[in-house]
């Protein structure tokens, strides 16, 4: 943190000849300008999807879960698949903002704000699925432990589904607080240069009266660091608990101890892919290529190839255990229902393998990691693959249960099930479009903090430093305290 020196060998985090004022200008300009036609089109599509989703949910609430094609064998289908998928996507935001902060990865500054926003919106989308899967959604508050009129009959604290309630709501709250506390100084920046009355008023309210006082910064730094410290185990716990929904049951294919690390790695994998999808668009549309650089994309692709390979190892380990355990049911699930291409859902398993394990290996090549089009394409592929992973886990374990008379291979979603999923895309992108227009999409203060160390135009100053004798270097640039 106190190192004021950064090697020439490191790629700059900010390109171009920037001053502090220029950084503000670049990042705040999209907020002050009228949105482009592209923005309106995108926003319109998102709202349309949201409306369709709202109608699908209306059908489901009015007529019941029967509007979906779930049956007595496949009780969890698209909805829980989508729930796990969205929660997983959220994880990259926290990983970038919290874990990389603790690891002192300077490059997080360019991407953390948008990634955290993505986390919050993704968790909002995820939450819809278990809530509406309850069927009688007006009784959703029954999951809260409160002295109710039924005894009081309490919720079951030993149940992973209740752990989920606590995990997801805590995760949402903490992510929101972390994100918003980081936004305060940037809202103040927007407020102080606003030239319309309304903007000054609204950003004035949103900035909570932030002034930039040194004491406030000191507390803010402490707050960010501790929130990062809290979020790091939190993000691991959340997907661990989501995996417990499966792992604590006795369904073949779910009852495995590998689930927590495997789910967490998968979550980070899909989340980074979603960050890539969003940021590749944002950096282009808002002209922020100096801040979200190819270097950032390269680094995120490294995380994708790493986590994708971890997920791949997990798949292979599962297959191995399916054989090694010599449990008939495990063996049947893994080697027939999943890995056998011509079984009813074999295609989904191999789709998952192709998207998640094989295709990300392309990122071992530096040239591919730094290619925007390849990255964009791969980011979509990875998220398709990760959706398949959850579908495979849920459906292939359920469709042939212990009683052959209740086997069901004909599960395909109804239009309202698909509509609900599409609706969460609508919700996600509606929120994201509004965020991109009205919020600073890059953490302005944090960029300024790294500017003079990692900015392209400031790096040549370090040339002289690199030739200094060691004693002098340590004296001048070592840890200050």
């Amino acid at each position: 943190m106190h190192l004021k020196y950064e090697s020439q060998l490191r790629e700059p985090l900010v390109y171009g000849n920037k001053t502090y004022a220029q950084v503000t200008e670049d990042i705040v300009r999209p907020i002050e300008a009228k949105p482009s036609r592209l923005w309106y089109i995108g926003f319109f599509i998102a709202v349309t999807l949201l409306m369709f989703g709202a109608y699908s949910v209306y059908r489901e609430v009015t007529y019941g879960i029967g509007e979906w094609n779930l049956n007595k064998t496949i009780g969890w289908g698209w909805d829980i698949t989508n729930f796990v998928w969205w929660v997983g996507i959220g994880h990259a935001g926290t990983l970038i903002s919290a874990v990389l902060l603790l690891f002192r990865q300077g490059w997080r500054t360019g991407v953390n704000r948008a990634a955290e926003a993505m986390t919050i919106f993704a968790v909002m989308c995820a939450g819809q699925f278990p809530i509406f899967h309850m069927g009688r959604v007006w009784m959703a508050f029954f999951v809260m432990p409160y002295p109710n009129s039924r005894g009081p009959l309490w919720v079951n604290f030993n149940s992973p589904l209740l752990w989920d309630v606590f995990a997801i709501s805590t995760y949402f709250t903490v992510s929101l607080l972390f994100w918003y506390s980081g936004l305060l100084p940037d809202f103040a920046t927007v407020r102080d240069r606003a030239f319309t009355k309304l903007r000054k008023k609204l950003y004035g309210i949103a900035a909570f009266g932030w002034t930039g006082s040194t004491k406030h910064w000191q507390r803010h730094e402490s707050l960010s660091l501790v929130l990062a410290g809290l979020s790091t185990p939190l993000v691991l716990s959340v997907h661990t608990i989501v995996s417990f929904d499966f792992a604590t049951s006795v369904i073949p294919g779910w009852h495995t101890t590998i689930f927590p690390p495997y789910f967490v790695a998968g979550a980070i994998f899909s989340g980074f892919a979603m960050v890539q999808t969003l940021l590749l668009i944002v950096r282009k549309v808002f002209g922020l290529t100096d801040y979200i650089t190819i270097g950032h994309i390269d680094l995120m692709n490294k995380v994708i190839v790493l986590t994708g390979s971890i997920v791949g190892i997990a798949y292979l380990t599962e297959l191995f255990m399916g054989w090694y355990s010599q449990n008939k049911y495990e063996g049947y699930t893994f080697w027939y229902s999943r890995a056998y291409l011509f079984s009813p859902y074999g295609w989904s398993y191999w789709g998952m393998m192709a998207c998640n394990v094989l295709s990300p290996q392309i990122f071992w090549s530096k040239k591919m990691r730094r290619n925007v089009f390849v990255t964009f394409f791969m980011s979509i592929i990875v998220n398709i693959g990760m959706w398949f992973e959850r579908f495979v886990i849920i459906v292939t374990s359920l469709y042939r249960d212990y009683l052959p008379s209740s086997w069901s291979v004909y599960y395909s979603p109804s239009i309202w099930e698909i509509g609900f999923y599409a609706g969460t895309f609508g919700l996600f992108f509606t929120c994201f479009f509004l965020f991109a227009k009205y919020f600073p999409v890059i953490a302005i203060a944090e960029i300024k903090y790294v500017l003079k160390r990692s900015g392209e135009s400031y790096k040549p100053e370090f040339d002289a430093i690199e030739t200094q004798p060691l004693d002098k270097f340590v004296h001048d640039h070592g840890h200050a305290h």
Partner: protein
Amino acid sequence: MAQKKFVVGCFDDEKVLFPAVKQVRTAGYKIQDVYTPFPVHGLDHALGMRETSLHTAGFIYGITGTTTAISCISWIFTKDWPLNIGGKPHFALPAWIPIIFELTVLFAAVGMVMTFLWLCQMAPGVKKHHFHKRATNDLFVMVIECTEKTNAEDLKALLAANGAVETDIQVAEDGWWFGTYDNDNEVLYKQVAH
């Protein structure tokens, strides 16, 4: 709240700011605050501020969450309504760890943010005097409160000599008030006639 008189010096580079802070403090002035667009590391020490105890508060909130979770769940499941779940023990500590952990994190995070806002006296709609609008953009704004002994002109000269790109004298509200930022120019920036 009281109206006070301040001497304000603006710097455009943190490399100039640090020696200036030292000079001003050596000259015997008490720096009220330095407003910066981003966290400048070491500035709090240069100003002689003590470390914040916010993280200690966070720890206390955290263990409050832990105790709340353990005591509530164990009371509910062993005393209030001992539910028989497959004949398993009523006091099932390992199964409660996820919720205990989540509540620890939740209490610590919410408590710390609340404390942060309280300590900094920040809330939606709260307004404070801005000594310079570019303090959240690209200027480092040093503010020194005048006492009856302070010669404001001398101080301005000292600031300018130490690299301040802009200096002025302002009479301003010390604390916060509720309000909007519409009429900044009337309420704020009351220039004192010299």
